[in-house]
């Protein structure tokens, strides 16, 4: 058995005591915690700095975009105003009452036995219906029948282009003392006045398949 002699036991004891000093250990722990705190703070600072840079870039972008947006909004409003105006005008144009097909229908149904003296038509937008009064003279063996044929033909022909068409006699009377010569023959006459009513709404066109 080896005998060891420690002649420095007092110095070693002091050294051990110093190394196990709780205050010193606590200070070391505190330093570690402070280092961790500082590291975390730096990390957060970096994050905030990056966010700040991003926000500054967005602010710069927004300065340009804001001007563009204001101009774009004004332009959109202007374009929408024009579109609305054109839509309103198109509606107005499409709701016009067109006399051309009406006059064409008259031209189509007037025969040599019919003479028109006057035509008074009113197609104001205030009224849904168009009213036309047609005065004339019919000639024929039975003049009243000629006048009625004209009225019926007119109603049918107008019905091809217009809706809610009615044509009724206001006046239909024989003119006993008046005759007219048609194709060399003297024929008795009848005076008539026809009230025509039709809708301003045009007939809906059906597109062929």
């Amino acid at each position, binding site marked *: 058995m080896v005998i060891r002699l420690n002649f420095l036991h007092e110095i070693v004891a002091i050294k051990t005591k110093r190394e196990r000093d*709780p*205050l010193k250990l*606590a*200070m070391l722990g*505190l330093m570690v*915690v*402070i280092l961790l*705190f500082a590291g975390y*703070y730096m990390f*957060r*600072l970096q994050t*905030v700095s990056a*966010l*700040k840079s*991003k*926000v500054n870039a*967005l*602010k710069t*972008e*927004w300065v340009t*975009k*804001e001007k*563009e*947006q204001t101009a*774009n*909004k004004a*332009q*959109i409003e202007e*374009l*929408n*105003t*024009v*579109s*609305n*105006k*054109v*839509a*309103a*005008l198109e509606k*107005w*144009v499409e709701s*016009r*009452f*067109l*006399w*051309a097909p009406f*006059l*064409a229908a008259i*031209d189509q149904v007037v025969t040599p036995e019919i*003479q*028109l*003296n*006057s*035509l*008074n*038509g*009113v*197609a*104001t*937008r205030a009224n849904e219906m168009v009213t036309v009064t047609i005065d004339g003279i019919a000639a024929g063996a039975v003049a009243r029948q000629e006048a009625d044929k004209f009225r019926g033909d007119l109603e049918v022909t107008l019905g091809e282009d217009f809706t809610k068409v009615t044509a009724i006699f206001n006046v239909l009377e024989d003119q006993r003392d008046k005759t007219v010569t048609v194709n060399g023959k003297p024929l008795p006459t009848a005076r008539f006045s026809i009230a025509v009513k039709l809708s301003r709404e045009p007939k809906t066109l059906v597109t062929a398949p």
Partner: protein
Amino acid sequence: MKKFTRDDTTKIVLGAVMFIFVVYAYFEFLLNPLGKDTVALNKEDAELTNKIGEAKKTAQELRRTETNAKNATEIFVQIKELTQKGSPVAWVPLRTRDFFARYDVKINDVRPAGSVAAKELELPDFIDTRWEVDIPNAQFFSLGNAISAHENSHPLAEFEEVRILSSPDDPGSQRVTLIMQLRIYDHK
């Protein structure tokens, strides 16, 4: 176990107090402002991103509206060109007379018969004018052609009234009065 001396205890207590102060100062004076900054910056980031997104949407909407309104813009320019500048009484009678003359219909006079602002709210710059067109002598066929052509080529005109009266001497010839409504763009 070794007992702490009085000096050790004092040092430990002081160390603990210092530690608490350091932790408090760290959170209160360093992390807390950073946290507040982060919240404010995130809010600002969200707001700006949202605004920029809206601006991009507006730009897209403009492109879409431009495409949709392209026809409307062209039509509106054409409509405005239908109205000459200056007082309507200076050009409407002349234009109407010239137009009907092309169809052998001679107009005696075109008189203004009143005007009102267009009733549509979308059209504050349009005026509805009325005109009395007096034709002393017209053939029915020529008149029909002229009216048809006028209705086709003047979309902002409408005949409100048509009065045709045959001449007792010549049934083929008629005296005609037309009441025409003409929608006019106000160039002012």
